[in-house]
């Protein structure tokens, strides 16, 4: 058990000492996670709203597709993306393989179904009278959607948190398309995997603690947001 205590001591020393490499990894992780979450939610939330509110042919199949995508292994997402972005792949010309953009793209693919499926569930949970009320008062489709979204705001905030949580903790895709290059594409999760493999348990644990703190901060932010809301 000594190695665990030693690891924790090292973790706090690194955190308090402001290690440059650790700071770089944290900043890159945040950049990738925030970018991917924003893009995934920008498309996923309207998609979820559409699925929840618009009857159309094939709607059930679309729901099944989105729900299946929720369980898609991230490493397979990374593998497919690797094929697309590799030099011989159809998107090879973009030159994104082993860049932070590739990691963000993989994270978008992972977070999009989460945002769509969970927001659809959140919108379906809103009292249908809210939508009817907005419509009968002459609201446009956008204003009606906004009224419904306001009603589901806590659930939608939780959707964003869940998407962010998945993205920041994701490793399979990031490892495949990012390559875990020091100072370039090394994120918290890929760094933890690497340092653990190298036997540098202290550093790995320090990064793990930072990951937990980031997750905690996001949840606190959500709690604050919920506390400010009124019925």
């Amino acid at each position: 058990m000594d190695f665990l205590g030693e690891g924790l001591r090292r973790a706090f020393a690194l955190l308090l000492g402001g290690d440059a490499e650790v700071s770089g990894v944290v900043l890159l992780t945040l950049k990738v996670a925030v970018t991917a979450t924003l893009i995934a939610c920008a498309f996923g939330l309207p998609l979820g709203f559409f699925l929840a509110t618009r009857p159309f042919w094939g709607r059930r199949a679309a729901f099944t597709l989105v729900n299946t995508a929720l369980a898609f292994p991230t490493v397979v997402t990374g593998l497919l993306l690797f094929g697309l972005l590799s030099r011989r792949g159809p998107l090879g010309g973009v030159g994104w393989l082993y860049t932070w953009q590739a990691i963000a793209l993989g994270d978008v693919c992972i977070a999009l179904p989460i945002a769509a499926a969970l927001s659809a569930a959140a919108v379906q949970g809103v009292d249908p009278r809210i939508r009817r009320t907005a419509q009968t008062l002459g609201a446009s489709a956008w204003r009606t959607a906004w009224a419904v979204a306001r009603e589901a705001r806590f659930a939608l905030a939780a959707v964003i948190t869940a998407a962010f949580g998945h993205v920041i903790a994701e490793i399979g895709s990031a490892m495949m398309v990012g390559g875990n290059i020091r100072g370039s594409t090394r994120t918290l999760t890929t760094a933890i995997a690497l340092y653990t493999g190298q036997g540098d348990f202290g550093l790995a644990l320090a990064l793990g603690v930072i990951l937990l703190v980031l997750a905690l901060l996001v949840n606190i932010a959500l709690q604050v947001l919920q506390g400010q809301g009124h019925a």
Partner: protein
Amino acid sequence: MLELVGVRHRYAARVVLDLDRFAIPPGALIAMVGPNGSGKSTLLRLLALLERPSEGEVRLDGKAVSGGPAHVRPGTAARRRVTLVEQRPILLQGTVRDNIGFGLRARGMRRAEVNRLIEQVAARLGVTPLLERRRHELSEGEVQRVAVARALAVEPQVLLLDEPVSSADRAAAQTLYAALREERSRRPLAICLASHQLEDAYRWADDVRALAEGKLSPVTPENLFRVELPQTGAGDLKHVRVGTIEIAAMTDKTGPAILAVPPTDILVSREPLASSARNAFRGRVTRLARQRPGAVHVTADVGVELVAVVTEEAARDLQLTPGSPVVLAFKANAVRVF
């Protein structure tokens, strides 16, 4: 003119509304009455363009605005002419002020104008003290009044009200109806309200229509009974149990049906009369109401409640008062079955 034409509306495979035509002319004051599940709320939602009919169409000034062969999707412009207040209305996020102003802001009105109209309509509905409250701080009756204020604020041509005073006490109901009267005196406004209270319907509406099992009743809305018609009977004469009495009716139908006895076809007397009427029931007067000049609605308990309409003069001659013993009689042929 808002109208439903050839509408058959289904939920899953079940037909919940079946109307050849239902029209609300400009400025009309219509009351829809009928038991729970008769299709009143569905009818109002179709009229409010919140649902598209499975078959048939909704027309506004002769133009199809929902459904029909072209499967028209209701647009915002058409919806802005018709507003529905649901039986259990819900307030949107924000204060009562935000709620009343919602439809006005949706129409792109300037803030000052919105505030002016909010104050006006709130005063008319007596909800000014509630303006800064949120929905969880209101009673059901207050929510209902705010919902009506919110609907009136957008000045629709047709206002649809689903049981508008179901959660209101007598005073609140009076305020509400007074506000509706005032609104109608200010501008042309057609109102169609659904109610299960006949007295309210007669008091407030020019035209009372009954809905049963999704169909318009061919007779006035009193004395409607859901029955099971027996297979057996002497020819087409069937004896149908309704509550504790048996009503004789002429019909070739069997199975589930609605049985209606027009109040004007019921003969009221103090003693049984020797007549051809196959139905004669003793009972006591429970209520007398003068809903139209010269006509008295006599409600009597004869095992079930039956309503008969007599003239003022007949009521006076028979010395009818609540508690008076009476005999109600009507012919088997007078009973409508649908």
